[in-house]
């Protein structure tokens, strides 16, 4: 089965083009867009880990190693599409236009971090595994019924394919032929469980056969193949053909979360032969004359400034308002809840005296 789903890639580990299918569509603008966004979210990710270590952020889920998958796929979205991320996909949501201050707030235990910018269909990250797949199907179904050309993307990891909701999301999407892209980031491990203990099938892509939808397996560390294949899946969806399952084979460089220690379950050298997606893009840029030291310097400066400002924005964000825990449970607050709120606020006011 593995032979039926070879890992497609456009550039090899040394950054040379090996598949010319999309070569003409690769231009300076696109290359710089990839670089900027991947560098931006990597810097963000590393900063977030540091902030967590300093006690300025709560537990955090790093995505280093998955930048090509997240940036490549998010850039393939149209302005009115929907994105249903997990807790490891803030690289994708930031690329799609999520607010960086709020991304940090989310990891600092602030519900404000779930609120997307106006007009951006970015769903709060799914914390249970695979439950967002049916949501993406439903939202895509709604777009189809409204007669738009909008589509949805659901992000999920390799472990998610073992959950019933994976089957349910794909099955409904296939039965009702809705415009959704199921974007799997196979990063090797679901916390500590390696993929070969997760499933007996050689690939995730082959699971598409059961739903009679296209299934493709791509190199998740090659931003070009991720971008073009996701775009193709979106075009396919927008044309009324229904869903696609994409397996982006990648590698989670670090821990599952900052509360996890990967050395307990996998040797450090495992994954060392995997070429980092950002290094690979750098090699490509040098190979094909896109490398521009001055521009790189400017970009890094711009990114650092943005992230510093976002950290400041998070730390200076107005303190949480207790009312919020009561105010968003229902559209109209039930009487008993209003009583609980009033009583507790009165208690707090008494304490403040």
């Amino acid at each position: 089965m593995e032979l039926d789903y070879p890992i497609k890639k456009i550039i090899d580990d040394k950054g040379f083009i090996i598949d010319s299918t999309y070569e003409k569509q690769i231009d300076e603008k696109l290359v710089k867009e990839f670089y900027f966004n991947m560098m931006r979210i990597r810097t963000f990710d590393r900063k977030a880990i540091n902030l967590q270590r300093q006690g300025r952020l709560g537990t955090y889920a790093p995505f280093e190693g998955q930048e090509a998958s997240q940036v490549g796929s998010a850039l393939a979205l149209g302005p009115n599409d929907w994105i249903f991320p997990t807790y490891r996909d803030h690289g994708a949501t930031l690329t799609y236009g999520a607010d960086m201050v709020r991304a940090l707030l989310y990891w600092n235990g602030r519900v404000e971090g779930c609120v997307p910018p106006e007009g951006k269909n970015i769903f709060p990250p799914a914390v249970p595994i695979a439950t967002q797949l049916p949501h993406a199907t439903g939202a895509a179904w709604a777009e189809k019924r409204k007669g738009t050309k909008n589509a949805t993307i659901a992000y999920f990891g390799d472990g998610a394919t073992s959950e019933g909701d994976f089957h349910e999301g794909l099955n409904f999407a296939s039965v009702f032929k809705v415009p959704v892209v199921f974007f799997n980031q196979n990063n090797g491990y679901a916390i500590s469980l390696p993929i070969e203990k997760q499933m007996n099938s050689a690939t995730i892509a082959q699971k598409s056969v059961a739903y009679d939808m296209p299934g493709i397996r791509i190199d998740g560390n090659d931003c070009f193949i991720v971008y073009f294949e996701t775009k193709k899946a979106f075009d396919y969806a927008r044309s009324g053909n229904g869903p696609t399952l994409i397996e982006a084979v990648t590698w989670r460089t670090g821990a599952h979360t900052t509360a996890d220690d990967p050395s307990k379950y996998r040797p450090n050298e495992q994954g060392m032969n995997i070429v980092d997606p950002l290094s690979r893009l750098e090699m490509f840029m040098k190979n094909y004359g896109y490398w521009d030291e001055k521009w790189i310097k400017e970009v890094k400066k711009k990114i650092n400034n943005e992230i510093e400002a976002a950290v400041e924005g998070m730390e200076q964000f107005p303190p949480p308002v207790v009312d919020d825990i009561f105010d968003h449970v229902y559209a109209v607050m039930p009487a008993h809840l209003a009583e609980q709120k009033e009583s507790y606020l009165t208690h707090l006011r008494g304490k403040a005296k």
Partner: protein
Amino acid sequence: MTTHLIESNEKNETTKQMTMIQAINDGMRIMLEEDNRTIILGEDIGKNGGVFRATEGLQEKFGNDRVVDTPLSEAGIIGTSIGLAVNGFRPVVEIQFLGFIYPAYEQIMTHVSRIRTRSMSHFTVPMVIRAPYGAGIRAPEIHSDSTEILFTHMPGIKVVCPSSPYDAKGLLIAAMEDPDPVLVLETMRNYRSKREEVPVGKYTVEIGKGKIVREGTDVTLIAWGAMVTIAEKAAEQAVQQGISCEIIDLRTLYPIDRDILSQSVQKTTRAVIVHEAHNTGGLGNDIISIINDTSFLYLRAPIERVTGFDVPVPFFSLEEHYLPTPARVLKGIEKVVHF
């Protein structure tokens, strides 16, 4: 002397005799006609009209993309409906039996109930989940559960439980118009057990309000769903002992109408709660707490609970032993009256 007060919010409404299942069907038909965001989803609800015929004729009239036969998949139905609801539709989901809802429990607990909270009201899930529930119709195992407490415990959803055709239609339409998710528990025992005059047009019964279905002075019986009829029968028998029972049909299980509880108990000074759900952790405990909070000094006796036992609902050859009967309720009434 049961009084079913018609509280139609449309005056001079023409009415028609309907069973509860007809009233539910009528409520969905009206909303499918009125609001094109309404979409009905479930297993066997299209051509087959649902296992209880609640959706009979609706697919024929509104088409198979508004009345949708789904794959057999409770989590898939609820999960997909979440996506539809956050993206502008008003899904009404039929789960064939409450006992079959557990595969979707995760979706309900982790998403339906808290998307509004998690997104600070940016995303909302205005969906309705209809689930037939309860024992007493000789159904196979797992079909007879009364586990409403699993849902009343979770903030973010509302739970209603009509016992009459009038309330079933009015509460269902209210649920379909509610900006928040509502679980509608439909007691299967009452689906066809009686008919009453139901307005033909649109009306709502307010979610969160109970109803006095029988006025009395000595003891308040608190019930919902099929247990309202059991309480009524017990009340008839109590008359022979000179005991006057007031009966509250709670109608909404979350949020509970605390005013009706306190007003009635303060008048009668005694209370018996009747529910077919298991005793431990049952909703009766919350009702006792509410009465303690609001009316403790009026009470002349500890509040009594007549409930299902703490056993899985038995196979139907024994289910009558599980369910509260008028005789068991009467015993409870005697206990609080002669305390």
